[in-house]
């Protein structure tokens, strides 16, 4: 009697393992311990943005599966016109857009409210992006007019559902108040349903989505911080889609699981070594060039993994709009490095210090660099600190050599402005992330921002990149694309080359095939 009861419960346990509604439930494994802030106008972390990606629309959007602004198409706005001077934009909205839940239809008032909220520095993390906007007005029930105070060539890119371009519903924000940041309401194919702390956020299909009801009914966005557990869960079939590690061994391991599709997505995250030009001996361009010559980029790409890494030569990542490969490069040559150092008055080599994070991925890069530089007589000393400390210290201008790895909106302007424009120099009131104190291409960067002729704009950006590499403000090393894998029974309905919001495009077209 006892034995059969035990057997029965054992069988029940086995049967219950992995049971879920097949075909309409998507389980996603994300590398994060918990949800952070899921207000679309505040969220900056990859896990949070990846989730919000599936819940919101913008006035326009980038075609799903792409990350470049050259693929902008209508979203909430079905058409738009621009004045000749580029300062007035009039958007005509669709009339069939519904807010999630019972929050009613979306109209011009909601769009105005949403953009005003995105521009409010007390609420939004992205208010800065809209500094050129003078006013946003509802000039009709379904018409919105945006007036700029100065021309901005890439302005349309600020209206895609990314950062401040996510359109939220006014009624929802007002009704939910502070709680909006815990259960955001948008107009996209999936809507918020449930949050289990440290476990998952559950989204359900929006039956009134204006492009059609999604075939996938539920998405469980699962927080699985342990890489090993996440991989094992994917292997066991408990999750269908997994956020990948930018790691060759990960790719090789996941490839072996049958029925797996691995996708590399733009925008890539580029690793740059920023050289603080105000701290001797790095104030001498010959020393900086010597360091560039001492770096064996091919070896570093090999070390990282051929499949997941692209060598980088320009201060703007390859694949971003405005990138040019036509920049001064410094071939790997230990002899040339030593010669340049001698010429600069350092025949016996130099010592430079770097504040470095103990985060494993970034640390290994620096350790490889350290040994490469040692061959050329450059002693790179690493001061290891914990990650949040690292971020603060480098912004306090405490580091001579700073490794930084980042992906940005895939247009040259963003990268150049944040890392290489003098306004962004760390330690100043307008600081962003210019660790090198680079100021050689300010004129080109500013001119390109307002240039309306695309050819001229590209030329200005190219000049900026050339000047930066001529002066070696920073040394680009490599670029890692975003890696995701999913069960090949899941068909997203689009070819995935990139995704601005860093998660694959799961839209109303996504479905499981049997």
């Amino acid at each position, binding site marked *: 009697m006892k034995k059969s009861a035990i057997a029965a419960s*054992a069988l029940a346990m086995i049967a219950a393992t992995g049971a879920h509604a097949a075909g309409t439930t998507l389980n996603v494994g994300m590398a994060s311990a918990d949800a952070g802030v899921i207000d679309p106008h505040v969220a900056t972390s990859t896990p949070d943005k990846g989730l919000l990606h599936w819940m919101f629309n913008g006035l326009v959007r980038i075609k799903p599966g792409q990350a470049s602004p050259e693929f902008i198409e209508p979203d909430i706005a079905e058409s738009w016109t621009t004045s000749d001077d580029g300062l007035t934009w009039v958007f005509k909205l669709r009339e069939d857009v519904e807010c999630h839940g019972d929050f009613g239809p979306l109209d011009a008032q909601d769009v105005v409210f949403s953009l005003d909220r995105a521009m409010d*520095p007390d609420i939004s993390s992205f208010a800065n992006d809209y500094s050129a906007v003078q006013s946003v007005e509802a000039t009709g029930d379904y018409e919105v007019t945006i007036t700029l105070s100065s021309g901005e060539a890439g302005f349309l890119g600020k209206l895609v559902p990314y950062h401040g371009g996510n359109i939220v519903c006014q009624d929802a924000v007002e009704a939910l108040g502070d709680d909006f940041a815990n259960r955001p309401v948008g107009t996209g194919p999936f809507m918020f349903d449930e949050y289990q702390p440290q476990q998952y956020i559950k989204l359900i299909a929006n039956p009134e989505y204006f492009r059609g009801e999604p075939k996938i009914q539920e998405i469980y966005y699962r927080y699985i911080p342990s890489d*090993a*557990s996440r991989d094992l869960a994917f292997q066991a079939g408990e999750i269908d889609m997994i956020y990948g590690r930018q790691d060759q061994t990960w790719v090789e391991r996941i490839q072996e699981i049958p029925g797996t599709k691995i996708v590399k997505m733009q925008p890539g995250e580029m690793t740059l070594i920023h050289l603080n030009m105000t701290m001797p001996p790095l104030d001498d361009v010959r020393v900086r060039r010597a360091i560039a010559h001492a770096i064996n980029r091919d070896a570093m790409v090999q070390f990282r993994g051929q499949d997941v890494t692209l060598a980088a030569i320009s201060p703007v990542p390859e694949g971003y709009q405005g990138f040019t490969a036509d920049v001064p490069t410094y071939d790997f040559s230990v002899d040339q490095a030593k010669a340049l150092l001698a010429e600069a008055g350092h025949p016996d080599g130099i010592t430079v210090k770097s504040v470095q994070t103990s985060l494993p991925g970034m640390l290994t890069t620096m350790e490889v660099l350290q040994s490469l530089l040692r061959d050329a007589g450059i002693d790179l000393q690493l001061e290891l600190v914990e990650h*949040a400390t690292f971020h603060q210290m480098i912004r306090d201008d405490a580091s001579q050599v700073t490794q930084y790895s980042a992906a940005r909106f895939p247009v040259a302007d963003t990268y150049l402005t944040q890392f290489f424009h003098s306004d962004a120099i760390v330690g100043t009131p307008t600081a962003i992330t210019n660790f090198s104190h680079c100021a050689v291409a300010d004129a080109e960067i500013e001119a390109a921002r307002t240039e309306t002729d695309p050819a001229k704009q590209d030329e200005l950006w190219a000049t900026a990149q050339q000047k930066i590499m001529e002066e070696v403000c920073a040394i680009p090393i490599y670029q890692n694309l975003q890696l995701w894998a999913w069960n090949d029974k899941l068909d997203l309905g689009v070819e995935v080359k990139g995704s601005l919001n860093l998660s694959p495009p799961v839209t109303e077209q996504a479905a499981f095939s049997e």
Partner: protein
Amino acid sequence: MSAFFIKRLGFSVITLFGVLTIVFFIVRVLPGDPALVILGDQASQVSIEALRERLGLNEPLFVQYLQFLGGVVVGDWGVSMVSGRPVVEEILKVLPATVELTVVSLILGAVIGIPLGVWSAVRRNELPDYIVRIASLLGLSLPAFVSAILLLLMFSITLRWFPVMSSGQGDTLLERARDLALPAINLGLIMAAYITRVARSAMLEVLNQDYVRTAHAKGLVFRVIVWRHCLRNALIPVVTVVGLYLGILIGNSVLTEIVFNRPGLGKLIVGALNQRDYTMLQGMMVIYTLIVVLVNLFTDLVYGLIDPRIQYS
């Protein structure tokens, strides 16, 4: 007895207050800016400054301290700087999962550890003793996350008996048991390793006592001597270790929580530390202190149960 309780409670409050003060100042001395962590690395200096202002981080330390104390007294522990959700709410949501895991691991550890320790002591320097000591050494030296992954590989991937992700959310007892099994075994085996060693050495000491020789001389069966007379005396050091370790276990559980993807206090505090979430860290420290204090109290009471000579007045 009640005077004893009141005195202990009084000390507990003082301890709590002391810990809170120390934690409050230490986390703020740590380098790393919460505003920067929250806003992310693309944030401009202007936004970071604005957030610091909003979070009250620019006020003098003592002002912040008094504001915090004022809140604590009325039960307002503040909101998480990162998520904006109330600290108490966040803690209470994950507390049951941690308690569940800890208690079950403890029971498992005791049920395995005590008999093994006794057996090992009784058969000292014979084969059973060697086996148990080696096993216990393995249990102590294998890191929690390594054993966790091994368990996952064996039982979730190869044998498919248990799920990889244990949610702790099951509705039926069976589901909860299934989710709890591997994590509890993981922690339980580590606990068992500790308890075995303590039980063994406590037992060895007791077995050398004169009254054991007397009982033997009186003709009592050895089994009765061990389980009826010796065990009770050997339990006191074991209870001490268990009580001490319980406090540590709640913190140690973070590795198990991460690998098995269970919600828990351990994960919460590690996350709060990484994100410099001051308010969350303060709240968590109070909870931990409370738990340790309560466990100590409970341990003392259990002594009284085991050894009738111990009385509290």
